[in-house]
């Protein structure tokens, strides 16, 4: 999922200061799974914002809506019935959702409620860790299913570096060394010889290096 974390309250209160009526939009997908922007979080944030305003003798009307997701225009369209009553929109979805709302409602200010962080997976309840950086050319088949681009602090394709200590990265003793994980997997799979095959320099064009990306499916695009 795409993970995110709520921005500090101070920042959120500051950007909503000029308004009295807002639409607070949650998302039922990724941000629900990482407990950052689903229906529950919309309720809590709404209450917190209203109390913050009340404390200063002001009111903030918050219309709470949680869409199925915010990265498809069909769902954004559901906001049409509410948009006029709001002076501004605050979206609890990832950056994709915030932008889609802004794209659809060009004259309505839209603010992000969360900082979108990474593409990751749940390690266990309440703990999410980075797994993928969308490099556009997946090498997981070569590295036993552990990504050196997302999980090695130096994104080495021929690691580990000399700082790997007890299976942990030199940057943080709680951070796994991706190349230790890769080596352990290669051993478990009985394909240790794979390790000495040098992986060539990456072509970053398939990643962000080539500019913002787009996928067009000719068979599906209208």
């Amino acid at each position, binding site marked *: 999922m795409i993970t995110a974390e709520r921005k500090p309250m101070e920042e959120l209160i500051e950007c909503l200061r000029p308004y009295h009526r807002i639409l607070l939009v949650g998302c039922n997908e990724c941000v629900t799974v990482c407990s950052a922007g689903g229906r529950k979080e919309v309720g809590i944030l709404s209450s917190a914002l209203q109390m913050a305003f009340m404390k200063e003798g002001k009111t903030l009307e918050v219309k709470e809506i949680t869409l199925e997701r915010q990265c498809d225009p069909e769902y954004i369209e559901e906001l049409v019935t509410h948009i006029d009553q709001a002076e501004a929109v605050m979206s609890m979805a990832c950056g994709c959702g915030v932008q889609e709302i802004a794209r659809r409602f060009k004259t309505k200010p839209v603010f992000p409620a969360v900082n979108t962080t990474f593409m990751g997976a749940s390690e266990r309840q309440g703990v999410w860790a980075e797994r993928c950086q969308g490099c556009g050319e997946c090498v997981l088949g070569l590295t036993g299913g552990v990504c050196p681009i997302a999980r090695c602090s130096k994104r080495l394709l021929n690691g580990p570096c000399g*700082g790997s*200590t007890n299976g942990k990265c030199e940057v943080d003793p709680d951070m796994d060394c991706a190349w230790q994980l890769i080596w352990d997997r290669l051993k478990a799979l009985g394909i240790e010889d794979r390790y000495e095959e040098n992986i060539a*320099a990456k072509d970053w064009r398939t990643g962000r290096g080539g500019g913002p990306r787009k996928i067009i499916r000719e068979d599906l695009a209208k």
Partner: protein
Amino acid sequence: MKTESVLEKVFASGELAVTSECGPPRGAVPEKIIEKAKMLQGYVDAVNVTDNQTAMVRMSSFAACVFIRQLGMSPILQMVTRDRNRLAMQADILGAYSHGIDNILCLSGDHPHFGDHPMAANVHDIDSVQFVQMIRDMRDKGRFQGGDDILNPPKMYIGAAANPFADPFELRVARLAKKIKAGTDFIQTQCIYNLDKFEKWMEGVRDRGLHEKVKIMAGITPMKSVGMAKYMKNRVPGMDVPDEIIKRMAGVPKEKQPEEGIKISVEAIERLKAVEGVKGFHIMAIEWEEKVPEIAERAGLLPRPKIDL
């Protein structure tokens, strides 16, 4: 011979090679690097210049190497993949070679987390292994990494680092094999205190005949004090300092500790001379460059062969 490098010539002669290193200043003060280099002149075959070591900004290794070259010494340009993309690296290599610098040490680099700019973007366009390969192709195929031809390809003598003390130990020989496959000519190891472990690594290296495919230089760093010994043991990733060393350093009064540290280094060099496959010594006396001549002398590494640049 692949290059005209003084270092390559020393290795070819069969003599043990000796290198040392200088850290450039944290400002536009060329006098500092020149002063350090002059302390080493005549006592080493070539001098490494570190590249934004520990991710702290310093005068660029390239610029500092130029000053050293102008003194008539042979510099080893250290370059990390952390700060530059492949265009900048190839450009700097052309530039350095044009200034008469023909040795390069390819490294990944310490993570910015450790330095004075933890907020900087980590480049790592390529890693150290791909870096070695890139320079080899520049030299031997006369081509840029992108494929186009190079006018007057740089004949760089290519080095890389090895750390027998990092984890996982079982991979450290294989990692050397990878670097050799990519085209490494010489290796400088992380500084050695745990001689037993180093010898174990060398056994693994010899088992695979790797000691004949690359020139391995053993890294030596003299301890200045017991404080330094403890710091290196506990706070530097990838460093192995056995307790006996700490005990030895702690066992002498403070004024005598520097001498004890040098003694330990000289003893290590003597022992390592006997290890098959060790072709030289890389003496890293960080902020203590003035001791290198003494260490070289006491370890019987002088005089250095006179080879013209």
